[in-house]
């Protein structure tokens, strides 16, 4: 038997044997580009969901776990006990279970608080300002139902202002933002799936004759679907990787801008470090190519198997 030349031997079994000619039918240009765009949008939508969740958390754990108590005539003597009304209120608050900290604001802090409305030099206006006590709860869900009557008894006219109502509204806003981001993610995944399905159908149409030949030679549906799925997985995964990498600098910039709302120090943002990005995003970004690849695999499998049912 004649021995084939080295060049011919190299041609015998090319790496990545492509019996259906899918390298041309499922081009490595348009599909990865479109999937990359979807992955980029998915990264932004996911970051939006994470940001909204973070804001809601900060609001709940910050303002939601605090009370403001106003004590009129704080320096006046307390009713039925020694000391001032303010000292009596603070002592009562500190002795109440579920309250982690109760601290009377200083005159300077009070003036700072009022500066946006009354301007500087509040102390010169001789206004009868109430004493203000800032209260930190052990937990945002702490119930202090009987507190107001007891404070009223110790210092009549004392007002307890819970931030629950507007915190509830802000939390609802944050949750609706999360829901919008979630819907955007689902839509992006659906569009990516549709794009892959259209590309797969185009590939099926372009390679119809080759598929029929291979089918006639005894290829199973699984075999043919696996060839398409393998190609679609590769292209979608590559697109997802490009999209994730492209999204990274944008997310870092957005995270830097959002630093004041996320409870980080401004220095963290000005340093421009990678630490401004929440850890969950660092986990999600590598997951994007995997998710894109999974969508590519499942979509191609489903599309090809449905198409093959028309063959006997």
């Amino acid at each position, binding site marked *: 038997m004649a021995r084939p030349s080295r060049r011919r031997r190299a041609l015998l079994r090319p790496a990545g044997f492509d019996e259906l000619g899918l390298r041309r039918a499922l081009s490595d240009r348009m599909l990865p580009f479109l999937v990359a765009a979807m992955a980029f949008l998915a990264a932004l939508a996911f970051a939006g969901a994470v940001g909204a969740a973070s804001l809601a958390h900060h609001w709940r754990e910050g303002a939601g776990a605090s009370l403001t108590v106003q004590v009129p005539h704080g320096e006046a003597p307390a009713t039925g006990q020694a000391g001032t009304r303010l000292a009596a209120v603070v002592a009562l608050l500190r002795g109440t279970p579920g309250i982690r900290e109760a601290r009377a604001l200083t005159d300077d802090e009070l003036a700072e608080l009022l500066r946006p409305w009354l301007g500087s030099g509040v102390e010169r206006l001789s206004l009868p300002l109430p004493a203000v006590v800032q209260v930190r709860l052990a937990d945002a869900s702490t119930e202090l139902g009987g507190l107001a009557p007891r404070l009223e008894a110790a210092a009549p006219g004392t007002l307890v202002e819970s931030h629950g109502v507007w915190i509830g509204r802000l939390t609802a806003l944050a949750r609706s933002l999360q829901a919008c981001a979630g819907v955007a993610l689902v839509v992006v995944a659906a569009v990516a799936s549709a794009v892959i399905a259209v590309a797969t159908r185009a590939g099926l149409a372009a390679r119809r004759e080759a598929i029929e030949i291979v089918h006639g030679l005894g290829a*199973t549906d699984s075999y043919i679907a696996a060839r398409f799925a393998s190609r679609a997985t590769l292209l979608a995964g590559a697109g997802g990787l490009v999209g994730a990498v492209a999204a990274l600098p944008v997310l870092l910039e957005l995270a830097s801008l959002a630093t004041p709302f996320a409870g980080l120090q401004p220095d963290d943002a000005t340093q421009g470090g990678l630490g401004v990005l929440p850890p969950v995003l660092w986990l999600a970004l590598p997951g994007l190519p995997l998710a894109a690849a999974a969508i590519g695999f499942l979509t191609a499998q489903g599309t090809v198997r449905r198409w093959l049912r028309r063959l*006997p």
Partner: protein
Amino acid sequence: MVRFESVGLRYGQAAQAEPEVLQDLSFVIPEGGFRWLLGPSGAGKTSLLRLMYLAVRPTRGRLSILGADIERAERRALPGLRRRIGVVFQDFRLLSHLSAYDNVALPLRLAGRPEGQIRADVMEMLRWVGLLDKLAARPAQLSGGEQQRVAIARAVICRPRLLLADEPTGNLDEVQAERLMQLLKEMNRIGTTVVVATHNDAMVARHVARSLRLDHGRLVSA
């Protein structure tokens, strides 16, 4: 064995059905048999072959191929059956982007044969059809006769139990056509059932065998 019992075939959906292209076909080809399939153009020879290589299912009647009832067989059972049937098409149906080697190796790969075991068989088959020096050539680089020989090598490499050929000598000169017939008869001698559709009366006269003659979708002699 191939058994047709009152088989009819029509193309198209039931609602807009075309007339039957094959009507009331009944015949048996025993295992190891050889049959010419004869008849004028449009008589239904290609449709009959399509039924035999499972490209279509009969619209009515009973069809048994290699022991399987085709009209009742589950779809998932057909690929395994197809791998036991070799087909030589009139238009070759080679995959244009694959080399001659890969075209011939394809049925073995589809059958899940390990790559290491494929090479020797493919090289032997290409030697058998005289194309060992063209193993890296794509179909477009081969003459019509060479493509036909690649198609034959692909059809027989899995040692099929049933070998079907549709006008296999149509693109060959006399010498090549005679050589092809020797190949088909050799396959038949080792137990393969062979059916050859042809218009080549001279070839039929030189190689005497039983024949199935079709006319207007009906079997006129068997």
